[in-house]
């Protein structure tokens, strides 16, 4: 395994940036905070269609009861995450899109009474369709960040053959340790979930990609695979720690030397990438029949006691910060997700959602933008071989067609460019604005 690691390290990406890892919570076991008194469940927690509420104010709900669903295929239903009563509605701002999303408020009765779960099943006895139905019913979405409904990702369109599945345990964002803890504490469940993915997609190869800063996880998963006698099925690929190693497109390039077409998905080149936490959730949904109501969230940075918490969705981030001892010092920025791709949040009542892998508290950084000096550092680090400074200049000037000429659609907004930029230009922000304008134009046509 080590020999392989060295070989791949040499193959490692020349792009990207080395960021300070700050994994403060790596050795903190997953803890369960007390149940929240009230949860706020946004009705749109996946990248597809929003859900409609299927309950109304005053209804009594049980933990795991479906409260929102949609007819649309690309959608995942949402469930009550505590038992209690629907006491109102709310509107939350979805940080990545700034859209306003309706939400249901559930006041907990403190009993945490669950709905009757689907009977536990051996995945071998289930058909592929039954497995996908269970995953959809559980409301599963990809936990790596994009929140793409999992059953859709597991149903490649006809004619697209998936020959490789990559389980993504890179966790290249600084600070976050939720995936690492899942690998260390729920390794068996994760591998069970991966077996289910293997059964559904029947790929030729299944790889588990882990960055070499998580030696423990590599050893632990290797041990579990051996103990389960699955050495022939799963292969661990240790990768050099570098941001953004954990991006799907980077993994397909590095492990298989396949480039996903601009604007495409890994499945266009026969690859499906799943996050380790998603695999664990697939196990819970399929084998245990449990709806998706909680996940591991790293609460870290300038809080008194940084922790990895098993959090029910809808829990306000403020109560998680309180549970970790509150904000320390002069920290004045609360970020949902990691420091590279996460979003600043202004409201501590904002709920944790399915896509939230971390709550990071830190001292905010005033951005003093200077003019570009054409140092080309952004070009050197861009993992997609784009010219970020050129994109930012065109975006700033409102020349969006020129942004397209420079392949703006290829950018997945990792932020390596802005991290390296000496002139402090918020390059990613300019690119996001240009993408939105281009999307608006495309919608008009």
């Amino acid at each position, binding site marked *: 395994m080590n020999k392989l690691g060295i070989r791949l390290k040499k193959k490692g990406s020349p792009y990207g940036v080395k960021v300070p890892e700050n994994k403060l919570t790596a050795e903190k076991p997953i803890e369960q905070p007390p149940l929240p008194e009230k949860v706020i469940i946004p009705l749109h927690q996946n990248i597809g269609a929003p859900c409609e509420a299927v309950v109304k104010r005053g209804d009594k709900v049980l933990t795991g009861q479906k409260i929102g669903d949609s007819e649309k295929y690309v959608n995942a239903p949402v469930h009550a995450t505590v038992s209690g009563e629907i006491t109102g509605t709310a509107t939350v701002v979805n940080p990545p899109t700034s859209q306003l999303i309706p939400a249901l408020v559930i006041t907990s009765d403190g009993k945490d009474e669950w709905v009757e779960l689907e009977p536990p099943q051996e995945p071998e006895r289930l058909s592929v369709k039954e497995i996908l139905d269970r995953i959809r019913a559980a409301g599963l979405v990809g936990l790596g960040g994009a929140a793409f409904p999992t059953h859709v990702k597991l149903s490649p369109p006809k004619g697209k053959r998936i020959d490789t599945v990559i389980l993504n345990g890179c966790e290249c964002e600084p600070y976050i340790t939720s995936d690492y803890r899942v690998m260390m504490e729920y390794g068996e469940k994760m591998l069970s979930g991966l077996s289910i993915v293997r059964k559904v997609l029947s790929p030729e190869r299944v790889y588990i990609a882990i960055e070499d800063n998580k030696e423990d996880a590599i050893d632990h998963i290797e041990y579990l695979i051996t103990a389960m006698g699955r050495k022939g099925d799963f292969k661990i690929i240790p990768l050099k720690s570098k941001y953004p190693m954990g991006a799907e497109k980077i993994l397909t390039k590095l492990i298989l030397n396949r*480039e996903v*077409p601009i604007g495409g998905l890994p499945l266009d080149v026969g690859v499906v990438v799943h996050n380790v936490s998603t695999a664990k959730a697939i196990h819970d949904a399929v084998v245990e029949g449990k709806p998706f109501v909680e996940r591991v969230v790293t609460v870290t940075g300038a809080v008194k006691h940084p922790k990895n918490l098993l959090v029910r969705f809808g829990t306000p981030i403020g109560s998680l910060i309180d549970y970790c001892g509150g904000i320390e010092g002069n920290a004045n*920025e609360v970020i949902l997700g990691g420091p590279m*791709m996460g979003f600043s949040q202004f409201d501590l009542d904002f709920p944790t959602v399915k896509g939230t892998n971390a709550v990071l508290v830190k001292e905010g950084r005033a951005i003093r933008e200077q*003019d570009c*000096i054409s140092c080309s550092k952004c*070009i050197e680090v861009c993992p997609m071989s784009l010219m970020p400074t050129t994109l930012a200049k065109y975006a700033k000037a409102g020349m969006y067609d020129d942004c397209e000429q420079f392949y703006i659609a290829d950018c997945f907004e990792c932020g390596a460019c*802005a*991290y390296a930029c000496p002139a402090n230009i918020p390059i990613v922000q300019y690119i996001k604005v240009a993408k939105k304008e281009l999307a608006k134009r495309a919608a008009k046509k």
Partner: protein
Amino acid sequence: MTQARQFLVSPGPHLWKGLSVSKIMYLVVIALMFPTGAAIYFFGYHALSVIGMSVGVAVATEYVCKKIRGQAFIMDGSTIVTGLLLGLILPPTISLWMVVIGAIFSIAIVKEAFGGLGHNIFNPALGGRAFMSISFTAEMTTWIKPMGFGTDAVTTATPLGESFVWSADKLSLYQAMFLGNTAGSMGETSALLILIGGGLLLGLRIINWRIPAIYIGTVALMSLAFWQDPLFHILAGGLMIGAFFMATDYVTSPLTNRGKIIFAVGVGALTVTIRQLAGMPEGVCYSILFMNAITPLIDRYTKIKPYGLVKKAESVS
């Protein structure tokens, strides 16, 4: 409850490497201390006053320009770099009032009139020098033997000059040129100290190795093509300081690696062509200025092939 706090909402990424423009510029200033030291060692007090005057006037001009333009004046170090570079590429006998005019031209016209740092088309120090060469032809081509702090100046020719004669063996000529004990602009004579400063910037990854390496390599090959001694041409004139400190100027050199290679080959070919075929002994300054001018054009035609481009074309066909 951790309420009642003003939270900052800023765009991501929320981390920054911290290598700012001014840090880069001050690192260049530190690297330039090596050739500056050589200039003062070989050409004495007057070198010190020329360089000091150049830096001082450059900073003052920048301050005035920023006030006139209604912008904030930031000591980001780039003006100090320009002032130092201009001082270093002047002849050791230059009059101080000419230095004042050159420095004002460098900053006010070549840099600020185009929009300031990041917007200038030409390297400000080279632009200032070109202006001085045209305005003060005699003074800009008067060279003296390195005399340190002591004796009187003795005029002589630079190694590239037509009347240059070296009576001793070739090895001692190379040695003198490498250490800097020859006539020339104050900061360009010592290849050794330029290499130390340039090596520092290369080691810190402030400058890209492609421009100096390919520039010097092209000069060597082109000299051979003209049946000249390549080592002599590498060590002579302003090539070393030009390759490490002028051609590598971020703002006025291309963005992409391919562009940088084209740029460096162009500068190298032009330098030797001017040295051999034009009516001037030295061509570093004009070669770099010429390539500065076509840098936007190079940038336009050296787009990088992004991730996932070829595959798309295949899947469409």
